[in-house]
């Protein structure tokens, strides 16, 4: 459903913010700062809306149970989630986020789980790297794996020694061929961002409607 008012607002706001990157007009910069501040506040509101929605979905699973389509185990998982969320809100909201009790929850629940999730990735990546050639054998796979193996070998102390020449080899790979590919990638990403952003600013794409 097309709404020209919404499109006009998005375009006008976008043009003001974009113009501020290139023009140093006082009134423009003031208006730009106000719009950006409003947008920052709205992002925080959107985050809270997301948390409310998360709570509502899992609360529904807990209270309705099998009638709402949730199995027994799903109810328990949702109950755990709701309990964790509520406890964090109460402790952190009442005592403050930097209170020792609030930091206790962060240090002993969130941090170990996230770090452990990252740690099991180490096993998964070795397994994936070992099986990669079996799944797809071509020149690019070989180049990819050889680069990864060389960089891994020379990133640490090889056989307990820091062998000369290896550090320079690693530095050269990072400075020249890898940097060339990375520069191409980030330029490509930036061009894609510009294309997509200009489509939004021109009103061609309107994700805010409906």
């Amino acid at each position, binding site marked *: 459903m097309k709404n020209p008012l919404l499109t006009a*607002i*998005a375009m006008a*706001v*976008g043009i*003001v*913010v*974009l113009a501020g990157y290139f023009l140093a007009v006082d009134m423009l910069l003031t208006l730009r700062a106000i*719009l950006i*501040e*409003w*947008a920052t506040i*709205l*992002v*925080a*509101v959107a*985050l*809270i*809306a997301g948390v409310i929605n998360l*709570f509502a979905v899992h609360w529904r699973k807990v209270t309705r149970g099998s009638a709402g389509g949730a199995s027994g*185990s799903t109810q328990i*998982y949702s109950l*755990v*989630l709701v309990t*964790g969320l509520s*406890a*964090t*809100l109460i402790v952190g909201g009442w005592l403050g*986020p930097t209170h020792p009790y609030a930091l206790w*929850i962060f240090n002993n*629940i*969130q941090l*170990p789980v996230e770090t*452990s*999730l*990252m*740690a*099991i990735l*180490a096993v998964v990546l070795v397994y994936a*790297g070992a099986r990669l050639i079996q799944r797809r054998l071509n020149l*690019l796979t070989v180049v*990819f*794996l050889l*680069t*990864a193996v060389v*960089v891994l070998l020379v990133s640490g102390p090889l056989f307990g020694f820091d062998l000369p020449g290896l550090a320079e080899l690693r530095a050269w790979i990072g400075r020249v*061929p890898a*940097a*060339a*590919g990375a*520069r*191409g990638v980030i*330029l*490509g*990403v*930036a061009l894609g*961002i510009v294309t997509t952003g200009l489509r*939004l*600013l021109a009103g061609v794409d309107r*994700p*805010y409607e409906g």
Partner: protein
Amino acid sequence: MTWLDTAGALVGFLLTLMVFSYLIGDNPLYRLAVHLFIGVAAGYAAIMAINTVILPRLILPLIGGNRDERLLALVPVVLGWLLLTKISSRLAPLGSLPMALLVGVAAAAAVGGAVTGTILPQAAASINLFDLRGEESLNADLGLHLVNGVIVLFGTAATLAYFHFGDQAQMAPRVRGWFEGFRQAGQVFIAITFGFLFAGVYSAALTALIERIFTLVDLIKNFLGSLLPAV
């Protein structure tokens, strides 16, 4: 170490083992740990949003600010309430107005940043590789520097060519052949970059694994040390 610290260490130890159990396969212990983590993370996100944004920049200006501050704060208050209607499917269309403002600002920030922060400086950097005025005092091996510069420029252009999805049928056959070869060279540079990235990702994951193991060993050592003080 207080009892709270001990309890916390035990809780962390248990949660670490529950997450590691995923290597056996998806199981209820792993899911419990992940659900608890999601709840806690969401709670902290909400607290941070309220403490550092909503309260100081929305509520306090409305309550204690002067007239101008209140008027300026009124607009995001109204827009914020409209945005909250997105939770309800029935009222969701009301939230389109603040979404339009958000999309406009975010798109402009992304475009402006990409142009001024990446495209222009990085394009200039690809050319300035051959600017030897500053390099003479820093690097005696100018020949190697030039060779590296040629490789970087070639690699950057080849990588960009690989991402070109335009219509190549309009090119002359000979030009198309050269362009295709150029793209293949870009693929090789991308493979090298992604191999480097893979090594980096693995290094980060390995460090996390090392930290977990060291933490678990320290906990066991402390526990055994408290039980067996003579050891």
